[in-house]
């Protein structure tokens, strides 16, 4: 076994750089593994991962509830501003309160509904590529990937003119609390400042929208609040969640997918020659190196998973990227094959918490990849470049992706 597996070190530099080998090693040896360092179970096999994700009766997503129990009174006070908002995020809620919010918001995010944003996304991609095609080089994360999801999220909440740089800054601050910079000693303070700033920014917008309703997401939430279906805290929490969660993951998907295609020039050429493969290609890029490596659940009662007894209250790291390379589910799993079908990957999770923005992310990624393969040659990494990922158990996030290419 790899040293990092033996040390249970999910943040070891070699694991952050190449999580797939780590998961592979673990899956081959122990599909349900107690990680002493993380103090929870780590699951890397497709069957186990899918079984847990589709079973909200036995596995809870109530992260705030479980966290609250672990904290001292003083710690709880310190992070009160975070708790006040995050406990209303539907990603951290179980049925029935999850169900009400999900069914309400789902209609804005269906495969059909997101099509209204496609022309806008296509234009953003075109504009971004116009700027770089003659130059023959770009930095994929900031020159292309960043602007797409951010623009769509702002459009969705009906506030296209919000200050993007500020939103990014506050979102990063909130992110510190969850995954990035787990070693940052001020992480709670930083996250509290970020969330307070974001809330102060959004509340006047909600108040204004209450007086002047439109067809945007905030207006939909307010109408549901006024009909007594949800509370004001749900409205506010959901706005923060969408702004925070709506841009980073899709940005990373576009960067990771570009890199995967670069590393498989035959697949880049295939997509260039057969643009009708774009939907299948996006599914495969999601499977091959998606932007969310794992998600967490808590056992609601003692339960056997494979041959292991998981105790009530134990937490489980459900490795989506591990499941996505399980050879029992995907033949030749380490091969990128943009014609792969069927391809029931778990990149957006499965079950009741399957990513609300999945169709939006798919559409945005389709436009980004289709735009690129049409107009530029398969990019290469410059000789002096190296790939640097944010140290995170959850996110697969490149700090940047500088590439060179020529115009087609």
């Amino acid at each position, binding site marked *: 076994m790899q040293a990092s597996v033996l040390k249970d070190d999910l943040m070891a530099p070699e694991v952050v750089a190449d999580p797939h080998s780590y998961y592979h090693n673990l899956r081959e040896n122990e599909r349900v593994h107690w990680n002493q360092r993380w103090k929870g179970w780590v699951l890397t096999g497709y069957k186990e991962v899918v*079984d847990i*994700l*589709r*079973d909200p009766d036995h596995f809870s997503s109530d992260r705030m509830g479980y966290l609250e129990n672990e904290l001292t009174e003083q710690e709880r006070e310190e992070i009160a501003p975070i708790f006040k908002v995050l406990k209303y995020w539907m990603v951290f809620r179980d049925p029935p309160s999850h*169900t009400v919010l*999900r*069914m309400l918001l*789902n*209609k804005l*995010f*269906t*495969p*059909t509904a997101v*099509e209204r944003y496609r022309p806008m996304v296509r234009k953003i991609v075109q504009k971004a590529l116009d700027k770089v095609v003659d130059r023959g080089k770009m930095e994929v994360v900031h020159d292309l990937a960043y602007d797409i999801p951010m623009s769509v999220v702002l459009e969705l909440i009906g506030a296209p003119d919000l200050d993007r740089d500020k939103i990014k800054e506050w979102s990063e601050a909130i992110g510190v609390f969850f995954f990035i910079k787990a070693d940052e000693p001020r992480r709670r303070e930083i996250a509290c400042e970020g969330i307070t700033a974001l809330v102060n920014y959004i509340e006047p917008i909600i108040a204004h929208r209450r007086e002047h309703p439109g067809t945007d997401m905030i207006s939909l939430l307010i109408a549901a609040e006024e009909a007594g279906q949800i509370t004001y805290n749900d409205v506010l929490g959901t706005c923060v969640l969408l702004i925070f969660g709506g841009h980073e993951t899709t940005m990373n998907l576009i960067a990771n997918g570009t890199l995967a295609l670069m590393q498989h020039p035959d697949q880049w050429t295939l997509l260039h020659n057969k643009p009708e493969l774009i*939907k*299948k290609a996006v*599914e495969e890029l999601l499977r091959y190196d998606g932007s969310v490596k794992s998600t967490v659940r808590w056992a609601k009662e003692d339960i056997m998973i494979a041959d292991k007894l998981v105790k009530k209250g134990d937490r489980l790291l459900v490795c989506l990227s591990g499941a996505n390379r399980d050879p029992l589910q995907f033949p030749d799993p380490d091969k990128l094959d943009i014609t792969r*079908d*069927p391809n*029931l990957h*778990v990149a*957006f*999770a*499965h*079950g*009741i918490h*399957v*990513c*609300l923005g*999945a*169709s939006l992310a798919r559409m945005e990624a389709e436009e980004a990849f289709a735009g690129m393969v049409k107009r530029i040659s398969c990019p290469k990494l410059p000789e002096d470049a190296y790939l640097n990922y944010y140290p995170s158990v959850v996110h697969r996030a490149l700090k940047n992706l500088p590439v060179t290419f020529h115009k087609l």
Partner: protein
Amino acid sequence: MGNIKVTVNYNRCVGSRLCVGFLPAVFEMNKDSQSSVIRADAATATELVQTAEQCPQCAIRIEDSETGEVLFPTADLEL
């Protein structure tokens, strides 16, 4: 309109339970926690299409069983 045929594509269904939430008389979860059709005639064609549209995976197919016309998903949404 004739009889409506409702099918779930098990290579697409991820068990979101949304269809069960919207039309519990038509859909239920099976032992694999995927959706299964119990009574296609327990809803109107319009309700069925509206519910199929809510599926994040486009896993539900609605057809007119007499004419074979596919009411959902539309061709542009097919993988």
